Structures are given as C-alpha cells and as structure tokens.
C-alpha cells in the first residue's frame, strides 16, 4: 500500500518546520546586543542628558545596559509604566530586540532618534498638557492619618521616616512611603494596610489647586497571590463628599486608576479610607498626584 499524500506532507513538514525554527533561533540570538552596543547607546544618552530625564527600556525587561547608565535616572521596573514615565520632562527609550518596534502610547512625541547596530535610542517628550504639581507620597508629611473606630477617631501622630504610626513603630500597621511589587513591577507607593475593626484614613486637607487628581491603587503582588483575608474597600472623599468607592477582591491584581476633577482655583480636602472585614494580608497601596 502506498503512503498517503497526507502522511507524506506531515512527515516532510517536520524537517521544514525545523529549518524555519532554526532560522528564527539564529535571528533571535543574533539580534541580542552585546556590551559594546549597550556602551554605545549609553554614550548617546549621556551626551544629551538633562536633569529630570529618565531612561526606560524597550522591552522593559531588556536591562542589560543598566551597568553603563550609572548615575542616571533609570527605570528598572519589570514592566513599563508610562504614567510614571510621563512625570519626567523627557524619557529616553533604549530599545533592543523586538522592543525596537514598540513605541510609547499616543500623544508622546519623539524629539531625537539614533539607530545603532543592535539598539536604538529615542528621546520622547510626554504629551503636552497638565504637569504633575503635587505628589501625595512626596508630601506624606502633610497627611493626617487616623483610624476610625465607629464614631471614635484615633489620630496616628508618630511619624518616622515618611511613615505614620498609631503608637509604636510597627512592621505593617502604618501609612507611609514604601516600594512594593504591585501589578507587575516594583512601585513607589503609599502603604495603607487594612486593619482589624477600624477604617484607616489618610487625609490631605489642603491639596493644591489643580485640574485632576490621579489616584492609583491596588494590592501588593504578595497580597493578591496569597488570596487571604476579605475584600478591601477603598473610598475617596473630596471635601468630605464620597466621590469614588471600590472593592478589591482577595486576589485582585492590578494597578487601578481613578481620575478626580479638582477645583483649579482653590485647595481641596482629600481623604482616602481603607477597610476590610478580615485584614489578613490586605496590603493595600496607593499613590496620588495632582496635575495642573
């Protein structure tokens, strides 16, 4: 009996596919930059560097050039965060491999571009419009942190190293500056772990005038993966009026964004309240910026 045409096609497809695979293999390996490529890219960046610039990578994980960028402001997060990058005046994108085809989100404009052997260096400017004028994290000292036990308010008055404690220093019961892995990268955040039978409140009574308040919030990677405790409720109050509420499930994974319109002519009182029935591993984090 003759071998069927289909069987022949299957049999011959395997070596053919293998040849294609090998070609892909060689392309992938050969497009990887070496130290000379990274060094050349770093020299280009250093040559036009200005205070307030930031270097990011494309793809963001391809950070082999870091060693050549000592002393510069480099984003070494695991994944890109264009919101964070847009706080900088200018952003250098050091692209390699398949990242050379990627571009920042819409609205960014390229002001300089240099193609090198296996890398490319592009200087981007964030979209024109509002600029950040006030960071809650940077102004953690201005915050009024308290715990609400029903009608009773417990003021947290012990501030150490950018963290507010209600009483003695505690490894996780505080509201303050920290850096945590949240939704795919380490972020500079305000830590506000939910606590038992109370609402944690962080208030900024005189947030400067601006167009928009951008709040990001989410559970840490550890909290989301642990799937412990109960849902976390977050409430944002503007001048004592609730303007936003959300509930994060125990395995909620994400860095969620909420934009709140501010009064452009006067200061605003902003309060952020966090609560959970079972606060086990409810590592709530947030950041907030005023844009004008």
């Amino acid at each position, binding site marked *: 009996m*003759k071998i069927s045409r289909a069987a022949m096609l299957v049999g011959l497809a395997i070596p053919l596919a293998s040849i294609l695979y090998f070609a892909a293999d060689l392309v992938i*390996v050969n497009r990887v930059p070496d130290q000379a490529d990274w060094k050349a890219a770093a020299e280009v960046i250093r040559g036009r560097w200005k205070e307030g610039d930031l270097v990011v990578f494309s793809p963001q994980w391809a950070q082999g050039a870091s060693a050549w960028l000592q002393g510069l402001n480099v984003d070494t997060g695991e994944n890109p965060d264009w919101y964070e990058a847009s706080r900088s005046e200018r952003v250098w994108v050091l692209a390699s491999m398949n990242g050379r085809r990627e571009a920042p989100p819409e609205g960014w404009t390229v002001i300089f571009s240099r193609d090198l052997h296996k890398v490319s260096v592009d200087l981007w400017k964030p979209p024109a419009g509002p600029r950040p004028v006030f960071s809650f994290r940077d102004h953690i000292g201005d915050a009024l942190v308290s715990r609400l036990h029903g009608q009773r308010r417990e003021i947290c008055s012990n501030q150490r190293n950018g963290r507010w404690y209600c009483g003695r220093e505690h490894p996780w019961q505080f509201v303050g500056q920290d850096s945590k892995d949240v939704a795919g990268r380490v972020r500079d955040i305000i830590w506000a772990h939910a606590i038992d039978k109370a609402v944690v409140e962080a208030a900024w009574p005189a947030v400067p005038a601006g167009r928009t308040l951008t709040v990001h919030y989410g559970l840490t990677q550890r909290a989301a*993966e642990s799937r412990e405790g109960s849902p976390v409720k977050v409430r944002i109050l503007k001048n004592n009026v609730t303007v936003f509420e959300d509930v994060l499930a125990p395995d909620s994974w994400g860095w969620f964004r909420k934009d709140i319109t501010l009064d452009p002519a006067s200061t605003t009182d902003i309060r952020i309240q966090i609560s959970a029935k079972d606060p086990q591993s409810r590592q709530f984090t947030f950041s907030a910026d005023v844009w004008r």
Partner: protein
Amino acid sequence: MANKIRKIDILTGFALAACYFVMLFSTLDIGFSRDEGFYFRAAEEYSRWYDELVDNPAQAFTKKSIDQHFAYNPEHPALPKMMYGLSWRLFGRMHDPVSEPWSRVWYHNTRPPKTLMGIMTESTAMRLPALILNSLLVMFIFLFAVEFFSRRVAFVSSLAWMFLPHAFWHAHLACFDMPVTTMWFLVSWFFLRATPPLAERKACRRRTWGLAALAGVAWGLALSTKHNAWFIPVGFLAWYLISRWEEVLPKGTDGRRHFAFGNIPPAFWMMLILGPLVFFLLWPKLWFDPVGQMSFYIGRHAKHEYYWAYFFGTLYTKPPFPVSFPFVMSLMTIPTPIVLLALTGQLKTLREWWQKRRGRGYRIARPLPIVYRDTVLFIFLNLLIPFMIIAAPNTPIFGGTKHWLPGVTFLALFAGLGFEVVVNAINGLGERFHAFRSRIVRTLIIVACLAAIMVPAAFDTIHGHTNGSTYYSATFGGFGAMGRFGMQREFWGNSAFSALEWLNANAKKNAQVDFHDTAWDSVKMYWRDGLLRRDIKPLWDFAKADYHLFHWHKEFLDLEERGRQAMNSQVPIHVVEQDGVPLLNVYQRPPRAPAPRVLPVVRPRGLPPTPPTRATPEDTATPASPPTTRNTTGNAGGQE
C-alpha cells in the same frame, strides 16, 4: 519476542554515551545551585565515613558513627551523596592546609583531606558520578529502543534526549534529579524485558527471573537515589492491569475467570522484595532507626514547603497550582523540532492502535516497528506519570522542570518513533517520483532531515548552556520568553557563577559580598575551585555589604528594592544576562566620602570660640587655619 541486542548495538550505545559525556565534561562552566551546594557538603561529610571504614571497620558500622557522619541532609537517601563523596576523595585536587592555611575553613571540621589522585577540581570530582550515570542514560535509551523498536528509532531517540537544554543543564549537577531519571528509565527497561507475554515468560523462566531480579535491584537503587522512585511501580501496575489483566484472570475450562496467582510476573515480586532491601542497605540512617527515619522521610516530603513559581506573569505561592504547568513548561523548554517529532510519534502510535482496534490494521502502509502490542502503552504511562505528579494542584512545583524529567526520557522514545513518519514520507517520495527511487538518494535525504531536526536542538542545548535551566524555545522567543511572558528566570542561586569573574576583577580587597540566593556551601566550593578570590567575604546582609548579587526571582523583587535603598545604589553596576534577559544584578555600594580631617565643631551661639579638641600634624601645617591657642594635647602647634 523483543529484538536481540547485538554487540554493535552496545558499542553504538556506548559511543553515544561517550559523546554525551564529552559534551557534559566540556561544558562544566555551570554555577552551583543551592541544592548542589547542600549536597557538596553532605558528600564531604559522608565521605569521612570512608575513613572510618578503612581505619576501624567495626566502629564504622556503629550507630554513633552513622549518626555522626550521616547527620546532615537526612531528608534524602545517602547513595548519590556517598558516590559524590567517594569520587571527590579519589579524584579531587584538595587544598594543602600547610601551604594554604586559609583553606582550612573551607572544609568540614577545618580538616581538608589528603589529595589522592588529584586529577580534577573538587566540584568536577563531586559531579563526576552524576556525569557518568547521566551519560549512561543515553546508552540505556538507545538499547531500550533497539530492543523494543528499531535501531533507527533508537538512534533518533538518543539524539532527541541528548539535545534537551534543560536536561543537559541538570545532567551536570551533583544532584539527584538526573540520576533518578536514569534510574527510573533503567528500572522500566529491566521491568519490560522481564515482563514479556506469559507464554514467553514461561518459555524462558531463568532469563525472566534474572531480569526480574535486575529490575528489583534497579528499583532499590532508584529508591536510594530520590523519592520520585516510589511512584515507579504505579505505572507498571497500571500498564499490567490495562494490557495484561487476562494473564492473572484467565478463563478456566468452565469458561469462568479465576485468579492465577502464579501468573503474576516475577518482576513485581522481585521489586517488592529486593527494592526495599537494597534501599535499606544503602541508606545507613535506616540501619538503626528504620521506623523513625522513614517516618521523618515520608513526613518531610509529604509536607514539603511550597517553592514559588512564576508562570505567565502570576507568582504561584500556594495551591492550587495550575495543572497545565508541566505540560506548558515542557512545550516551552523543549526545542520545538523535538516536540514536533514526539507529538507526531504519539499521534502515529495512537492512530495505529485505533486502526488495529477497528480491524483495519491492514490499511497501515508502513506500521511502526514496535515489538509488543502494549509497549507503547508502557512508555506512554511512564511518560505521563511524572508529569501527572507535578500537575496535581497540591504538589510543590519548585519553578523548574527537573521534577518530571523521568517522563521526558520516554518522550524522547516517542520522538524516535515520530522520525519514522519522516522516513515514511521520504520513502513515499520514492514511490511517487523517479528521482527519489535510488536508495542512496533517499538515505541522504533522511540524514539531511535528521540533521535539520537535530541541529537546532543541538544549537539550543549548547548555546547558553551556562544558564540552560532558563532556556525557552525560539518558538516562544528564546530566552526572551522569560521577560516577555513573565516566566521563571534564574534557577536557584547558580547565576552568581557568571558574576564571579567580574567580582574578582573589580571588587576591592576584602570586599563584603551579599550572595543573596547562593548557598554558603556553594560559595565555599567557588573558593575551593579557585573561581572566587579568597579575600572576598561572603555575607547575607545587604545592609553591610559592599556588593549585593540579586538573583532575579519574581518573589525577591521587593527585597531587591530594599537592597537598592540599603546600598544607596539604584542601578546595577554589572548585569548577568542571557540573550538580553537579566538573570542577576550586581549592586555596588557607592564609595563613602572620606572622613573630614578635622571633626566639625558645633558651637552654641553666643559662646566664645574654643580651640579644636584635637589636631593632627597635617592640620597644624595648614596655613589657612593656624592654631592660635593651645590644644588639649598640648604638644602641637603652640609653644610650651
């Protein structure tokens, strides 16, 4: 009847094994993973028992001696570590405590043993037994396939196994995962040889019992290697109950089935008797407290902590783990040509089985060269079981691929069968086209096709072999898949190896280095092998370190941030990367500003200036600030 293994087959198998050994031996630039460091230490401590065995044999077999020498790492059987220790003592080049007194602290009880042959570095000597055993696996695969399939299937299966990057990487280590893979395969081979159909068994009773005894001993050795081996009989039993149940439940003359005790294959009996016996004999910790040690052993592995695994951007920290993990990871970490061959082999055997079952076996143009009808089921079950163990949602998965490698050897056999489909296609060309009628032409095309399949796999295996445990196939973007898909990168602490050269060249004298995930015993071996400058001081505290080696694991990213802040260094000074993906970042503490020559004096407002409390000769020589009054020491600057 199984195919007869001839001398030429043994020679070919041995040649393939020798090639693999050369490949392994010439690519030993692979760092010491955490577990390997622990086994180095265990091997060294166990090897002291040999001294006692030689000096005072009666004492060596006492409980005191066993407890003393085998106290460390009691959660794993002793055999591999005893072999590594023996090889180290025989072949390792030890440091001389007299000419190199500093080297004492690198050894157990600060007593380096005397060099015997001294023909290789200490780590290589430790690894040697694993290198040999893992090379022999190639021969076993070849001979298995010769016996139950064909020489061509055997050759392709062996090559398919040789060119698996993850298996190749693990094959270098003085660990247990590859040795137990070899032992699993060996037991399976002996078992299958010892369990032909009943008529054949009855015809060659002596041979059957001999092979059954070998299967029993091999299982004992497997049990003495790693606990995976306890699962080996599961597949054998399942296979026997599915395919040979009629042997033990034959129809009597009355037409009714009865249980035929005597038909149970001898291999089962031998495994039942010899397996535990060999296991007991080869683990000294069992000799004096078998119940206590076994309770500890079972309890330790039944309640093993969960190692976190990063899989498609999700860090799995506790059950349920994804059932797909071993299957998807294998798809991504086995070169695609081998995957294609293996899948084709599986589909082809399945199709043949289905056609035969439906009575259409005559329609198979070129049947696969399989000796027994149920051989394929046997290799399929042995392939499946190691995968299923890890796929179970509550099994700790450790992030790597090593725990189901015993199944991958059987996947290689399917790859060998899959190549028959390629060969059939080429023969089909000969049937249809005149240009391909010549046997030489077809042979050349077959060789070219084999090369087309194996060369990429070989390239993948050798390229980046130092970080072979982080390999992902080009179909998923190569090593870049780690970053692109959010997958496990570094294995466990071995990447420090690639930073040693930089550290040796750049670290200041007596630098303190936080080695992060690299175990202390691994660092000691780096010293002993001369891979790390001996003045470099390891510590595991980035708050005090001059350098911090951050091993890229998802679960450590918070720690990296703390390390950066503690070191006051935001950007790594050196990055160990594989094909553009960072595996390890070296952070350097910026040099501290020199201390001021004169300590600043803060004076309360309104008080008259006071003289400095202390002055050095250099201060007195500075014309800009000549001392005008007597200082407290009274002997510099002013006049008495």
